């Protein structure tokens, strides 16, 4: 193979050595932003309807109260809490991709960071609404906040729910700012190259970014601080979410391994969600240039890794109570495996452990988008089922057999759950027409740093530091 051929091959494979003129790159990102296709308004209509149904149902629930859900005397937490844990889990990985992979300087993160960060923002907003929807008296939610008041009543800082509220709100603030800081140079790019109201919007978002030496330096410092900060917050947030369960004495919940197990599950579902979003953007916006096989491959390896970590913690969480054979804990496991949770349990094992394990080892699978899309969607289903099992099936098995119960979701919970997913998708659909969706300055930076160097008869990619 000649050098030209080799160079050609490298350019086809790797985004960072396939440098194109800035104008061309800008056009590729900004053109889909400006174009409103035929499917846009119908999609906004359908998704908007689902989101509206969510709010209307919530209104109904406040009027009639929680009776319209499927909750009962025994199982008093259900799909709302499962949704909360699930969605905040997806939100975790968004920043993981953007922050951890940035600190580790892993290059395939560059074009997909924005997607990951936005996923975090939408998911955390949707998930934060679920604990509120779950309250019996939603309109009193502010009693959980430590605000000064004349009666000198404070929230109970012993309660895991207060830790949870604190963690969720700080994560919401951090991840929104993190997303915004990363957006500034791209907003400035859009301001300079588009017309109309999008220019006004991006002008406003860009905060007077001029791209001076000092501004870049400040941006880099801010990104570094936020990356480190968010990397510290992220595992603690999901550990605290797991404490909502682990700190109780309910059999099946009271587990010392819940913290890392939940963190692993969170990153797992998040990586799968990013794969789904990345594939959809690659297909719908014709971004074959930005999102290539190497990105799907990198994400696929990451997915396999998180899958194995999840398997490990799941095994830990299972085998210790099983070996202990404490009657109630054993009953929890039996109910999952061979009782009411049977279908959900084995489906979860299949989608979360078996399917990824027997497919993702092969590069051909990892780079074939329909397979990756299918696997990722199944993993989403499996991880929602996991949370559903932990919340409702475990809670249905109590210390005294008189109190064993079954939970079945009713329409209200299903409408609110679909509404939340629709909210996230709608967020993506709308925002993809407002701001640039590729972190273009990071791609350009990478293309500047990475060069093909000739060594003997071969070409290698070398990166300047």
């Amino acid at each position, binding site marked *: 193979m000649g050098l030209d051929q080799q160079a050609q091959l490298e350019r086809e494979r790797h985004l960072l050595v396939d440098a194109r003129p800035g104008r061309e790159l800008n056009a590729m990102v900004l053109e889909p932003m400006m174009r409103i296709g035929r499917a846009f308004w119908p999609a906004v209509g359908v998704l908007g309807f689902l989101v509206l149904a969510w709010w209307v149902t919530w209104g109904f629930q406040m009027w*009639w*109260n*929680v*009776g319209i859900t*499927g*909750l*009962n*005397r*025994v199982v*008093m*937490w259900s799909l709302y809490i499962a949704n909360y844990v699930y969605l905040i889990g997806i939100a975790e990985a968004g920043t993981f991709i953007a922050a951890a992979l940035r600190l580790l300087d892993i290059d395939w993160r560059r074009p997909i960071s924005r997607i990951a960060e936005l996923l975090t923002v939408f998911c955390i907003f949707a998930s934060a609404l679920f*604990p509120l929807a*779950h*309250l*019996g*008296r939603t309109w*009193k*939610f502010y*009693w*959980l906040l430590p605000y000064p008041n004349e009666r000198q*009543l*404070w*929230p*109970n800082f*012993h*309660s*895991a*729910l*207060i830790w949870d*509220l604190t963690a969720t709100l700080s994560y919401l603030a951090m991840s929104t700012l993190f997303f915004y800081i990363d957006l500034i140079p791209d907003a400035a790019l859009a301001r300079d190259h588009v017309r109309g109201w999008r220019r006004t919007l991006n002008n406003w978002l860009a905060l007077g970014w001029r791209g001076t030496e000092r501004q870049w330096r400040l941006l880099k410092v801010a990104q570094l601080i936020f990356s480190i900060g968010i990397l510290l917050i992220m595992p603690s947030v999901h550990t605290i979410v797991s404490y*909502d369960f682990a*700190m*109780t*004495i*309910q059999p099946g*919940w009271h587990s010392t391994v819940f913290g890392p197990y939940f963190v692993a599950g969170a990153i797992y579902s998040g990586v799968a969600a990013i794969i789904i979003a990345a594939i959809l953007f690659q297909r719908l916006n014709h971004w074959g240039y930005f999102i290539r096989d190497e990105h799907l491959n990198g994400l696929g390896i990451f997915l396999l890794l998180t899958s194995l970590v999840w398997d490990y913690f799941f095994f830990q969480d299972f085998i210790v109570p099983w070996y202990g054979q404490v009657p109630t804990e054993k009953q929890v496991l039996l109910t999952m495996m061979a009782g009411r949770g049977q279908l959900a349990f084995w489906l979860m094992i299949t989608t979360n452990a078996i399917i990824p394990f027997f497919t993702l080892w092969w590069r051909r699978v990892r780079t074939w988008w329909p397979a990756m899309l299918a696997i990722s969607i199944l993993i989403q289903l499996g991880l929602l089922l996991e949370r559903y099992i932990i919340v409702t099936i475990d*809670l249905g098995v*109590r*210390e*005294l*057999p*008189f*109190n064993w*119960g*079954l939970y079945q979701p009713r329409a209200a919970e299903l409408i609110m759950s679909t509404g939340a997913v629709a909210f996230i998708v709608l967020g993506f659909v709308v925002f993809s027409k407002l701001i640039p969706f590729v972190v273009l300055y990071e791609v350009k930076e990478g293309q500047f740093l990475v060069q093909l160097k000739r060594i003997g008869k071969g070409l290698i990619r070398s990166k300047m530091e």
Partner: protein
Amino acid sequence: MADATQAEHKWTMVVDLDKCTGCQACVVACHAENNVPIRNKSEVQANRAQHWIRIERYWVGDPPAKARFLPMLCQHCNRAPCEPVCPVYASVHSQREHLNLQVYNRCVGTRYCNNNCPYVVRYFNFYDPYFPAPLTEQLNPDVTVRTAGIMEKCTFCIQRINRAEQQARTEGRDLGPDEVIPACVQTCPPSALLFGDLLNPESRVSKVLADNQRALRVLEHLGTEPAIYYLKGGKSYVRF
């Protein structure tokens, strides 16, 4: 005035399982005394029956099996799992009387307390309470009618405790050993339920529990230190 954190009473109930016939008179009495709403058939079928005291029925042995009854109500644990988990201090402890209190108007309905209650004796108002026509005439004016969206549970008839204490205070004397009688105890036909102050050696519960071989507490291994003692002889098949 005594220090608020100093225990003045240790309200305790004794349930004699060998006497309980499972007649459920205590359940009815509790509904009448404490304005516990009556849920309709579909709600009960959805497993939302609301009784501050309930009779748990267990079948023992192969059919024809023996039915054994376990009256279950809030255990007023000394170290209650429901208390630390409440984010707004709606579930609090009275150190003075050893009671678990539920502050209705502070409750926001996270329902976390019920998740952490191993006895599952806390009840959530899934809907606003409904009392069919004549029942509205007999609501107890001493007890709040709870709205939808909050938790409630057995209070050991705290309104009766307070009334007895006030009566004793106006008469300038100490509270008598068996002056407080909750509705369920008052009603129980075979006198399977007893109630009193364990700190008062003259009370019936103190006398019954003194060196009683039959006494046990439900799920004692969890360390909740319940205030309800169950009496069970060797022939009784209720096991925990």
